[in-house]
């Protein structure tokens, strides 16, 4: 079975079209009735006029009722060019004076005494309209009521009615089409906020769980409210989870430090080479675990601070220098050349000093762990409204295809060595929180570099400077 995709638009258009069709049919029927009535009314006047002309030509002469049929009466009816005319003049004795003796639609002639009577009937196999007009004769020698029964076939009436109906139908058709077009436009316009909401949601950062704040029509507010409610709950869950992770990492750190101290205290001199190797591996793993735990804590801290700490103007050059100092361990391989190149003037950004320091530390740490062979350089620079902190190493670098992936959590370029890290994830998180990005520069003429790119604080510069 084919599943039909439902669409608000097509549903609305279909229903409006149905209503319009029904309305058009109703209007057409009404137009037809109206046109018939109008045509009957117009031609009834002719019929009445002709009948009255004949009654006006009745004369009583020596006790005899005479009637002259004026040509003008027939010419009047002849305005309906194709219609046939039948008539009958009835005297007071009820006898037909002249005309068609059998023209009698079973109408009581006396009913025409008060006012002319109109009837639709059939005569000689043709539909006719009949008018009956009376005249009271009050000649002393001859008194009573005389009647003129005038009938005309209905071709002109029907032609006029159908012409009027056709015209009305054309108008109704045009109006319906206009209404439909208007409806289509109106529906499209009304559904615009839905698309806008969708694109707002799509454009949101996946980490952003704050309430959606867009201008929505009243009808969409419950929908947005539900989304916000859901996001709020999700946010709570995430916060809980983060707190749990932070707590867990914190809990783990104390025994881990103890474990690390215990391992350090182990005397390995007595051990044979095989056991030494095992011990070395234990030390390594404990070190990694300690680092991971620190990173988890650091990540939790960064996230917590990005939600809670108000940004202040800070000198990124200063922060980078401090980060550089703390990131380069005292035990660094003496063969590795490390260098720091600051900026001559303060580079001020609007941000949280602690988070920024953590970000830079993690980038440098990552470079030391996974990149650097002999050279590591940290540079702070500015240009075009941006502040750049560049960490370059002479390692193989990260292939361009992996760049977008490494900023996600628990990914490292050296997969398979058990060195999953949170370093880039933390840096990326901080960069985004500060309205910046983490970029990479491919190894080539220069060394491979990871660049923290932040916008230069505008007011901060003058405030500090």
């Amino acid at each position, binding site marked *: 079975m084919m599943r039909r995709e439902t669409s608000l638009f097509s549903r609305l258009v279909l229903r409006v079209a149905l209503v319009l069709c029904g309305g058009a049919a109703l209007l057409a029927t009404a137009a037809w009735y109206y046109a018939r009535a109008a045509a009957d009314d117009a031609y009834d006047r002719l019929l009445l006029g002709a009948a009255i002309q004949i009654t006006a030509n009745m004369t009583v002469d020596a006790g005899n009722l005479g009637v*002259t049929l004026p040509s003008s009466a027939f010419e009047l009816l002849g305005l309906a060019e194709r219609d046939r005319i039948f008539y009958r003049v009835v005297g007071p004795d009820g006898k037909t004076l002249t005309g068609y003796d059998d023209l009698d639609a079973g109408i009581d002639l006396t009913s025409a005494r008060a006012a002319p009577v109109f009837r639709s009937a059939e005569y000689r196999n043709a539909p006719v309209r009949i008018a009956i007009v009376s005249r009271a004769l009050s000649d002393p020698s001859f008194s009573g009521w005389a009647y003129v029964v005038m009938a005309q076939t209905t071709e002109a009436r029907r032609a006029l009615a159908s012409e009027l109906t056709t015209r009305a139908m054309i108008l109704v058709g045009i109006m319906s089409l206009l209404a439909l077009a208007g409806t289509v436009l109106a529906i499209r316009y009304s559904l615009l906020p839905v698309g806008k909401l969708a694109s707002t949601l799509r454009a949101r950062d996946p980490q952003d769980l704050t309430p959606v704040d867009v201008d929505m029509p009243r009808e969409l507010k419950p929908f947005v409210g539900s989304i916000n409610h859901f996001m709020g709950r999700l946010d709570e869950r995430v916060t809980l989870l983060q707190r749990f992770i932070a707590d867990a990492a914190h809990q783990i750190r104390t025994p881990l430090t103890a474990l690390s101290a215990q391992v350090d205290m182990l005397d390995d001199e007595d051990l044979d080479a095989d056991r030494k190797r095992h011990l070395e591996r234990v030390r390594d793993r404990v070190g990694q675990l300690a680092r991971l735990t620190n990173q988890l804590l650091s990540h939790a801290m960064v996230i917590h601070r990005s939600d809670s700490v108000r940004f202040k103007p800070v000198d990124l050059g200063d922060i980078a220098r401090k980060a550089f100092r703390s990131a380069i361990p005292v035990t660094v391989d003496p063969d590795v050349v490390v260098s720091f190149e600051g900026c001559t003037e303060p580079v001020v950004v609007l941000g949280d000093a602690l988070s920024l320091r953590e970000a830079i530390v993690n980038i440098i740490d990552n470079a030391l762990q996974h990149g650097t062979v002999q050279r590591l350089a940290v540079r702070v620079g500015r240009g075009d409204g941006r502040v750049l902190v560049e960490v370059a190493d002479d390692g193989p670098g990260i292939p361009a295809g992996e760049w977008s992936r490494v900023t996600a959590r628990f990914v490292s370029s050296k997969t398979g060595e058990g060195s999953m890290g949170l370093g880039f994830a933390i840096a990326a998180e901080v960069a985004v929180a500060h309205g910046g990005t983490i970029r990479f520069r491919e190894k080539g003429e220069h060394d491979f570099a990871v660049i923290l790119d932040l916008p230069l604080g505008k007011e901060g510069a003058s405030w500090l400077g």
Partner: protein
Amino acid sequence: MAWLKAVPLAITAVLVLAPTAGAVEGTRNVFPALDAERGRLVINGATDIEAMEPLIRDFQETARDVAIDYTDYVTNDLYRDADIACRLRQPFGDILLSSSVDQLVKLANDGCAQAHVSEETRDVPAWANWRDEVFGFTFEPSVMVYHKDFVPPEDVPHTHGELTDLLRFKPDYYRGRIGTYDLRQSGIGYLLAFLDAQQASTTYGRLLESLSRAEAVLRCCNNAVLSELDSGNVYIGYNILGSYAYAASRRNDKLRIVLPRDYTLILSRGALIPVGAKRGNLAGRFLDYLLSERGQGVARQKAFFFSRDGAVPAEVDGPAKLVESGIGRPIRIGPALLAAQDRLQRSRFIDDWTNLIVNTPVRLRPN
């Protein structure tokens, strides 16, 4: 005239036209098909065979396998028989031709006609077509005819009023010398008189009175009046159809034609296909022929001599362009003619006329 000589060949049965009204069967003529006969068209006409023959023969040139059975009636008889046939739902010819168009209009009004629409009928002017059922196929002014030998030039009347005055001032000379229709017998005579009365009722009243004093000679038909003129018994013929008058003037150059200059009624002879027509198809073809350019051309040259488009023949005394001048008043084929066909109206009109002209009081008149 060639077509006059051809007449006897075609006539298979001739009944003498009786001058009195009654159950008169007209003359019946059969025109055999030029090739093997595949159809036979029955025409019942109130139109002299002399006028119809050239048209019928020319039509047969276009339809060589059609034989034509033409019967000539007096207008009133034609109407009566057609009306009865219609009521009884019996066939009565395939096409009716009558100069008394009011009778054809009445028949059509009573539902006795079939509609016929074709290329040719579309070109017929509105005044000569009613409901696509009654078509006027000729153009025949009603004229005055005089005999040149008996009417001096200063006496020649040019309007209805002049004719009245002439009869008033020279009553003795013209007594018994004016010929016109007998309304009691002639449908077309009645129609023309009725329309005269409507066109100018005062003039008509005076004219009628003058005619009465002049003891007008009454005849059933055009040709009867024209033959009286021909023989010199009658000096002036009034309300004669131009076609017959022109044919007569071609036979006798002493007969002259005047188109009245105050107004000239113009009759369009009517054709109608009755509902009971057995060969309506053939009748339609004949009607189309009559209305076609070819048929109109033959009618102008050989049968009716006047036409809607052409000029008035040179020998005729009258305005060159009848209709454009406003003098020619075409009789509109339409429901207005029903007033003329009302039986009460008709009998009263004819009674009044008879009273005046025949000069017999109504109560003394037999039946």
